């Protein structure tokens, strides 16, 4: 059954085992590890990375703000990523995004008041033949429409209540 366990633990375990050197090339991997564990990169985390790598905090902050992967605010429980790739765009991802902002009452980048969802748009999820695509946490949904997205959200909402 090994084929069926697509867990990502393997990846993380592998990465954690390697202890990172105290040099600047560890800044990005460290920020990635921190975000993986804590969900975002806090001000305090920036200081921690700066101390570890002996780099100025301004350089670490510069890196954290340059790359789109890093979030500087605490995200909601579930991360909704709407693909804005070319194929998704021409097949109607805007309508999906509009509907989501309406349903959730937040703009792109925002987190719902109950802390359940964070809405993000991403450049390309790389599953263009399923366009328009939306990813919620690790699950990808294909051929999403404005109407189907509401149904897709239901189990996540039920789960919380």
């Amino acid at each position: 059954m090994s084929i069926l366990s697509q867990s990502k633990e393997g990846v993380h375990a592998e990465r954690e085992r390697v202890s990172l050197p105290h040099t600047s090339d560890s800044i990005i991997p460290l920020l990635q590890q921190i975000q993986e564990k804590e969900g975002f990169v806090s001000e305090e985390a920036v200081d921690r990375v700066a101390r570890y790598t002996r780099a100025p905090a301004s350089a670490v902050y510069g890196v954290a703000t340059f790359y789109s992967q890093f979030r500087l605010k605490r995200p909601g429980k579930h991360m909704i990523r709407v693909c804005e790739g070319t194929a998704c765009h021409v097949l109607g991802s805007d309508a999906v995004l509009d509907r989501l902002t309406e349903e959730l009452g937040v703009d792109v980048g925002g987190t719902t008041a109950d802390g359940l969802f964070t809405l993000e748009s991403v450049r390309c999820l790389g599953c263009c033949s399923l366009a328009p695509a939306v990813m919620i946490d690790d699950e990808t949904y294909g051929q999403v429409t404005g109407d189907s997205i509401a149904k897709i959200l239901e189990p996540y909402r039920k789960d919380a209540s």
Partner: protein
Amino acid sequence: MSGAVREVRVGLATCGIAAGAQRVARQLQESFDANRIELPIKRVGCVGMCYNEPLVDVVDASGEITTYGHVAEADVDRIVERHLVAGEIVEDLRVTPEAFFRDQVRIVLENCGVIDPESLEEYRARAGYTALENALNGMTPEDVIEVVKESGLRGRGGAGFPTGLKWSFAARATGSEKYVICNADEGDPGAFMDRSVLEGDPHRVLEGMALAAYAIGATHGYVYIRAEYPLAIRRLEMALSDAREANLLGDRIFGTDFSFDVRIKAGAGAFVCGEETALIASIEGRRGMPRKRPPYPANSGLWGHPTNINNVETLANIPWIVRNGAEAFAAHGTETSKGTKVFALAGRVRNSGLIEIPMGMSIRQIVYDIAGGIQNDRPLKAVQMGGPSGGCIPASLVDTPVDYEALKATGAIVGSGGMIVLDDSTCMVDVARFFLDFTQKESCGKCTFCRVGTKRMLEMLERICAGEGEPEDLDKLVALGNKVKANSLCGLGQTAPNPILTTTEYFRDEYLAHIEDRACPARVCKPLLRFHIEPDACKNCGLCARGCPVEAIAADEGGYHVIDDAVCVKCGRCEQVCPFDAVEIQTGKVAA
């Protein structure tokens, strides 16, 4: 139980998993258990037929493959009971992709969808690592470079620089330490070739890297890969540790004096890091901003050492070329563009997916023969190639062959391999705006023309899409576009105007319609649209009013519904729900 079936394969790349292949695989295992079938369920990468995912292949003893497409969990028992137990093919689930594969030539993708990407044995059973072994035991580094030069292979990341020549620069450079970097920062939206290769055949890329390292004299390698590709990273990590264990990487490979090892660096989401010097900055832990060249990375790259950077697909070609010879590779393609190219086909085509074609094939053949034509038989409008750096090739030039020079002459590029097919429901001004929005946000900000110029061009396009364009905007766009191209340091800025320059050239009428008539002929740009209910067609059912999110629709005394333009947000839901097609989308001066 049938003895005639050798193995069952399930396509478990990201695209397959997104379509539900994981659940299908789980159901297959359950069904096997229930029927006491002890056959292996093989996990394979993407075979390319994304339009039929999830895919299950049943391979019989003679090697004959029956492919089942769109397999749902509920279909699994039927496949197992009828095909595996009773030995009959389940015709209604079967897909016959002959036309899809007939004209393809598989070099890079020869193992994708065939082998288990997590098995080193399966890769080696298909001649994996023999190119490396033979090169280390019988070829000098110069021989390897010569073979690659003779093959005519050019960089598949988009720029098309001759690979063998690039290697010779790094080989000639002096330095105690040299690096080989595999660029797997596949950033073009609409491109997933590299991901599919890494997910479906990771050892091939490692072997290609080892050959490059031997050729230029490097001992260390990096794979710089998008963090958004967790499955590809996981499979690469497994491949790395298996290869190390088998001494295919590490010290004294195959008992020779050649040592080489690879590390994986996950990118953090910056399109510009596909550029060589920005990528190096990112590996070194800095903001990914390009620098001036020369010195080129071949002389001064990672930490100042000579560095050779190749794209995933380029490296994936290398083992095949070394194994089969330069001539076999150069037998495919055109005068200046040899071999094959992998494309990610998406958009308005029937068969979207991953294909590998010999260079020189016409775009028409790709769209109509391989991809099965346009959905709903609508007219082809354009093919977008090369992502944000590329351009739109109009339907009138659809006979252009896939060839670096021929495509460049149209204003587009071969690019990294994204191919988005557009029909008449696509607005070309909106497409240009979309790509510029992308490059403008991804500009690192170092060069003024790229940072500010793209912003000003985007503003102009946004105005045009909003029906506020001025006649002189077109000339301004072209003039500024040419300046941005000329005054940017790296490929991002140098190519960012391409989508605008090609659409203003080939689809000028559409720009003029937006500017002069305030009309969007494809009915995409919302500010230029007006939703109208045709009284004669309306049956007063009220579905539109119930579906309207802003209560813009009400029943009229005349026995039909009307839309209040002042309230309407043009979401289009009324048009979708109307069972009588009574909602018309109007555009042009009447709407003003």
